[in-house]
């Protein structure tokens, strides 16, 4: 049984509804043209969505199509992110209402520090904090000593950053702030090889790991139960449908995005973990 077939009926219905919506949209022809150019029969698609046979969307296709061509709807006030990694930059749009639905595995906190090497990532996560009624401090990844100074002044109780920034930052912060006051740490990243690091000597509590790409936002979270046993596997988020096609992680976001992502090839190599996770969720691991 494929992963798609394992989805609940409601999720399969939502996927089908998403595909029909973008296919029949008067506002954008991006997916319609993409599918038709690759041999998908439009009449067949409208009547019966064969999701797993839909062409996988590549990063290059996103890059090639201007934002207004890929925009299917207006979702209120939004931010447009410049996706700078991996070549020619391109734009992705996210509404505040959509950002609010993201998940970062963060338990209730009052004073988080957010800083990532990509400024749009920092801003997006900071806006997510605001949508959860949390007041974030946005830090500077190129100035860890100042960021540590401000973090101490604010009295942070949570930290959202990237693995490569964590240890050098905590080394700075520990000079004038007790790391015990940081109740939780969330690490976002999804670079190839991500998730292999699993030792954080400066932290008293292991961090939560979130799989994140600038063009997708967060889409999976590590299993804390398995992490306690030293195993790093990830569960897809509620609004994310993950497939693994030819070893690549393919992602569909179910939320109402201005620029929908359907069967997007993240170019991350991954595999499903052998057994059902102890918590009952499907779990995947990233590969080298």
């Amino acid at each position, binding site marked *: 049984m494929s992963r798609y077939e394992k989805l609940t009926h409601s999720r399969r219905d939502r996927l089908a509804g998403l595909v029909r919506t973008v296919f029949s949209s008067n506002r954008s022809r991006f997916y319609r043209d993409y599918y038709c150019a690759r041999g998908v029969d439009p009449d067949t698609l409208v009547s019966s969505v064969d999701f797993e046979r839909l062409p996988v969307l590549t990063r290059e296709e996103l890059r090639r199509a201007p934002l207004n061509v890929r925009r299917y709807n207006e979702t*209120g006030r939004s931010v447009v992110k*410049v996706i700078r990694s991996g070549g020619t930059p391109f734009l992705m749009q996210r509404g505040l209402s959509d950002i609010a639905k993201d998940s970062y595995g963060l338990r209730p906190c009052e004073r988080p520090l957010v800083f990532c090497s990509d400024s749009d990532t920092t*801003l997006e996560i900071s*806006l997510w904090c605001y949508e959860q009624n949390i*007041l974030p401090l*946005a830090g500077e990844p190129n100035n860890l000593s*100042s960021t540590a100074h401000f973090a101490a002044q*604010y009295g942070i109780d949570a930290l959202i950053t990237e693995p490569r920034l964590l240890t050098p930052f905590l080394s700075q912060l520990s000079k004038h702030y007790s790391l015990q006051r940081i109740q939780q740490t969330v690490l976002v990243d999804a670079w190839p090889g991500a998730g292999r690091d699993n030792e954080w000597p400066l932290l008293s509590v292991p961090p939560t790991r979130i799989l994140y790409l600038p063009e997708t936002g967060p889409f999976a979270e590590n299993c804390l139960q398995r992490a306690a046993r030293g195993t790093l596997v990830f569960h897809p988020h509620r609004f994310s449908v993950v497939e693994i096609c030819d070893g690549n992680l393919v992602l569909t976001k179910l939320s109402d995005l201005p620029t929908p992502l359907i069967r997007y090839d993240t170019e991350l190599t991954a595999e499903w973990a052998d057994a059902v996770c102890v918590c009952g969720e499907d779990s995947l691991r990233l590969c080298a």
Partner: protein
Amino acid sequence: MMNTIMMNKDDLRPISMKALEYLRKDSNRKHYFLRTSSGTTGAAPLLTARHRRYLMAAIYEGSEAMVLFFGPMSTRLSSIGNFLFWEKTLPHARMMVVTADDLTDELDRLVGEFRADALAGFPSFIIRALLFMRDPVVLGRIKKLILSGEALNATHRAVISEKVPHARVVCYYASGETGTVATQLCSLLAPNAYHPVHNVTVEIAEPDGDGIGDILLTVPFSPEVKMERYRIGDVGRILPDACPCGDPMTLEVLGRRNFDFIKLAGGIIRQEIFDRAVGLFSDLVADYRGEVGEHVVGNRVIGKVVLHVVLADSAVPAAERTRIQALLEVRLSEHIFLTPTRTLATLVRSGHFAPLSVKVVEAFPPQYKHVKVRKVDTFSS
């Protein structure tokens, strides 16, 4: 009688977070933001919490697609919140942040796809961006430039006039620790004149005969906490007559006092760097004065430094003066650090600055009496 108590940056520290106490009355975190100030003035960096007053609302009004050109993350985030959280912002308003890495030939395409109708940020950053933008359709959509952080100079005005002559230019006067304190919404104001915003009190400390003195600001951090008579570090005066628009208060900002840095070509230049470099040649140079400025070359803003020096030995013959001048132009360049890691010589090689010019003089012009390094629109001959 004027209250003589004045606050400086160190006096802000005990109250910098007190705005958060207002959460017991207004628990909506979107109404608050945190701002960091960089410490370029010599004081330690400061983090302040503030309750939004949406003072930029009148400036942002009518804009739907705004591109931000600020460097500090806290400035970016607070600006995004001021725009997107304000109830009267257009329902489908959107914002995009440009970084220095985006200043390439791709910028036209990105700003065009975004369909920007307003650019907001530091003048030098926006000017550098405009120099990369050539598409008349993209430039034609830009209806507003919202500028703060440095005074517009002749180079800035020339680029704006060429690239976006139809855009309304709105400047506002703000700092990291005070937020917005005055704006130029009124079209009748001179370039360095502003009307204070609601709830901000402006005073001039110890004005001289021309009414010029240190600018003092009383600004609320929240409805319950305010900085009182804060010395922002700028010098100015309050114009005696009401503005023709009817506003009774106009503040004229004349520059920094006692601070030794200049923002130039996107960077920051410190007088102490020149002091140290020239000090290495104290056997040759008795004193110096510096002029720094910028001009446009192609699609870049290039910095320029001119040093006027008085020689230690005023009796040297002309040929020797010429030799010393040439020597100083080369050697000083190698010791003037314009960034923590790059010298003027490095920046000349990379094309960010013109070669250093040294002029041997007998005496300095009167206007240089008290100011060792100054930013100029036009270099003196």
